[in-house]
């Protein structure tokens, strides 16, 4: 899922020092001493809740950027601030360099119509419209002609695997099917970014897995930028190119799944990722050590992106250490000891790549 050019191109969303405070006189809170109070104390003293606190991040073109955190950590608020469905209290948001907070109503509508489309946890479908008309709704809002929008909607319905159900109403669909309609509705307007707010939380585990596959497939086929909110760590690890971990409105760590699992920023994150099967997230790049005499020649060769679980298999088969090779150069080796240390979660000094 990683795109080679992801680090080089300009960010789709660039967020700097974003605050969202709910409550009376909210604009006085950001930057003031009150902002450092605990949530209860702040509420008692000012009646305000800080949902997003001084958050900064970039979403790069073509990546899946996952925002993860427990319930109430401010994820939904954050993603709604991106298109100003919730008006931010302070900070800057730019979409491809354009200032979002400075947009007037028409510009904002244009942003919502063409550039960022959202998929919601509770679907948000119009119950009185058929599947096809729901999918075509975004285009209808834009003023697209009937024949054209219906054709495009039919294409999208096909794409999300709902062919044959065009005439049904949302009430006659299962939860998973309804969310496919939500997804198709967002895709139909051909947005630059897809925003997902816990889209699969209301679905049962099997359907959820199906839908995750669907998103992975779409991303692979179209390479669309996605911001994906979830409270489910395994979902975050499956989908995310990068993950931002939120707690009490703050981003406590932002990095690749491997960074989050391999080097948690603090106790909170460490707790969070404790039960993750590390060998399925970490790669040999993180597990290897420098080769000592002779090791650089023999043994099986692995690419640095190989998962530890796969390396274990290779090492077990060959009986000796395996080489990590990139572009014909040996970066280091992994042996039983290093691999077991990863599985056991024992910190080993990292080798510079």
């Amino acid at each position, binding site marked *: 899922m990683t795109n080679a050019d992801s680090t080089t191109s300009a960010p789709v969303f660039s967020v700097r020092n974003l605050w969202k405070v709910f409550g009376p006189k909210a604009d006085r809170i950001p930057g003031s001493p009150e902002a450092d109070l605990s949530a209860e104390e702040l509420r008692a003293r000012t009646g305000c809740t800080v949902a997003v606190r001084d958050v900064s991040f970039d979403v790069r073109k073509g990546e899946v950027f996952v925002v993860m955190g427990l319930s109430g950590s401010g994820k939904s608020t954050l993603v709604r601030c991106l*298109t100003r*469905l919730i008006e931010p209290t302070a900070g800057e948001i730019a979409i491809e360099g354009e200032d979002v907070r400075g947009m007037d109503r028409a510009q904002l*509508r*244009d*942003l*919502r*119509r*063409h550039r960022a*489309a*959202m998929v*919601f946890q*509770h*679907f*948000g*479908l*119009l*119950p*009185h419209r058929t599947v096809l008309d729901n999918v075509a*709704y*975004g285009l*209808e*809002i*834009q003023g697209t002609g009937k024949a054209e929008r219906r054709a495009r909607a039919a294409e999208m319905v096909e794409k999300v695997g709902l062919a044959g159900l065009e005439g049904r*109403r949302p*009430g006659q669909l299962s939860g998973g099917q309804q969310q496919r309609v*939500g997804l198709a*509705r967002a895709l139909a*307007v051909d947005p630059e970014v897809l925003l997902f707010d816990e889209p699969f939380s209301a679905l049962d585990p099997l359907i959820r897995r199906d839908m995750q596959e669907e998103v992975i497939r779409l991303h692979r086929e179209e390479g669309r930028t996605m911001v994906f909110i979830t409270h489910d760590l395994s979902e975050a690890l499956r989908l995310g190119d990068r993950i931002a971990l939120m707690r009490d409105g703050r981003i406590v760590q932002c990095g690749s799944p491997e960074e989050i699992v391999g080097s948690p920023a603090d106790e909170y994150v460490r707790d969070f990722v404790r039960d993750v099967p590390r060998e399925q997230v970490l790669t040999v790049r993180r597990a290897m050590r420098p080769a000592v005499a002779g090791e650089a020649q023999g043994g099986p060769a692995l690419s640095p992106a190989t998962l530890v679980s796969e390396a274990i298999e290779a090492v077990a088969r060959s009986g000796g250490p395996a080489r990590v090779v990139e572009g014909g150069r040996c970066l280091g080796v992994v042996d039983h000891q290093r691999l077991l240390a990863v599985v056991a979660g024992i910190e080993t000094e990292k080798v510079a790549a």
Partner: protein
Amino acid sequence: MSAVTTAVAKPDAGAVHTARQLLVRHRGLAKLVLLAVVAAVVVPMVNSRWGSGSWPHALTVDPSGSLGKASNWIIDNRDSSPVFLYFFGYVSYGVGYAVRAVYLVLLALGWTGVTAAATLLAWRFAGLRVAVTALVSLALCGALGMWVPTMQTLALMVVAVLASVVVGALLGLAGGLSDRMFRALRPVLDTMQVLPAFAYLLPFVWIFGIGVPPAVLATVVYAAPPMARLTALGLRGADAGVLEAVTSLGATGRQRLLTARLPLARKQLLLGVNQTIMMALSMAVIASVIGAGGLGDRVYQALSTVDVGNALAAGIPIVLLAVVLDRTTAAAGARLGSATVERSGRGWPVWAGIAALTAALALIGRLLNSASWPGGWTVSIAAPVNSVVGWITGHLNSGVPVIGGTADWAAGFTTWVLDPLRGGLQGLPWWSVLLIVGALAWLISTWRTALTAVLAMAAIGVLGVWSVSLDTLSQVLAALAVTLVVGIAVGIVAARSRRVEALLRPVLDVFQTMPQFVYLIPVVALFGAGRAAGAAAAVAYAVPAVVRITTQGLQQVDPGAMEAARSLGATGRQQLRQVQLPLARPALLLAVNQGVVLVLAVVVIAGMIGGGALGYNVVFGLAQGDLATGLIGGTAIVCLGLMLDRVTQPAAATKER
């Protein structure tokens, strides 16, 4: 109460302490004690100054003089003042013109065309069964010789309902989109909903005189509130998630309203239309007193000469009209929910077909030269019904062995219940009535509510109709007691037996759709004219609602709690007494509140059949052109309604609504 007051008065520290504990624990007691203390201070003062009899004359203002002058001024200036010429005049003219136009269209369609149109529309909106009902109903209207008055009522209804729906929807739109508007509208709509229809008539007569325009306008004012209320609630209740999704796609405010909010609220909108139609019919019939004409007028004329046969002949079409209108609109609402009807594409050919068929049948009627219902096809039921009524008067009214007779019952009810109650109420010192009203309202709700109730009651005294109003109040209380006993008992039985409920449901459905006015017909046949007959009509009108609310309340009691009680081995009776009734308390309170509102509505209309009291003041005012008396009576009815509603409306319910 006295025990607690003495406990507080005692200087003994222990007793004071326990009393305080008692008060803290029972907030009701605390309120009563506070009230008792206030009363102990105020009452002697008031008493020494104004005495303890009926409302003191010194505290009344007699507005009839100035009202009389005002109405004389209106009569003198109706044709010359610019306000009347350029505003009320045009309104009156426009409304009258619209009703005439609709009436002419109905006449032009002839009975064939109207019947075809009604049947086809019912079929389109509600399916075959309702279509057959509509067909049979209209045929019956014709057969009873009531075709012309039915068309008159229908013409008035069409105009009034259209206006009510438009006005209500606009108000509801404002209330649904603006919080401030909603806060301002809500108490007004809530209050209008509890006021008796009769109270709405006078102001319109005052300004417009007697005739069709004031009848239509009174109907609009009476029938628009439910539409406004339901529109506002529907718009506000729209799923926030859907609206957010719509916004996230870049919809403008107007797009959001037209493609999401209104369609999402369409169930409530249709329910609003349904309620508006039913209320409009109810009012259109009552408005015969101010010259609406049509079916209501036939009933009114017949009742005033105790001609039950003719009253029934006009009453049956009213009921049929009510049933058809209710079923059609209700079924249209239910269909929306099931969402099986595919609207697009098939829509206009169906409408064109309906129009073509109607036109064809109207033409056939024309060619056969029978625009109005053929005279040979009518049956006069007046004579046979009157002979049955004669037989009832002769045989059932009195002297039936063991059970007595209906007139005996009525007389007994009047002598043993109504008279003592009225005497008792009128004998109470005026300040004690205020105190009781205040105490009741405060116990059940907040001090604001209590203040409103007391002020409403005091206003009655100030207007100088204190003892007449207590007469009305005595009838309301007597009828309410019977209503609650019967309604709650039947409700309990229905809640415990599926079979009884299934049997009752259609009966309740019909009873609840019938306009208030119609209830006067059978009670006059059975009990003759008088206060007891009025009370009987009120009971008949209010019982179905009480039964329904009680049944629903009992059935909705948490099944978990019932199961727990059963698992502890409670008998059926214990379950009812210890679990169901206490848990259904909110529903029972609501039943009382509804009962009061409905009973009052009919008790005042019974002024037309000898119920006397405030209702008679209104009727008298209308009949004699003594608008001052009528207006004061109407205002007192409003105050009484307000007071009774506030006294029976629990605080929680006020908050929830």
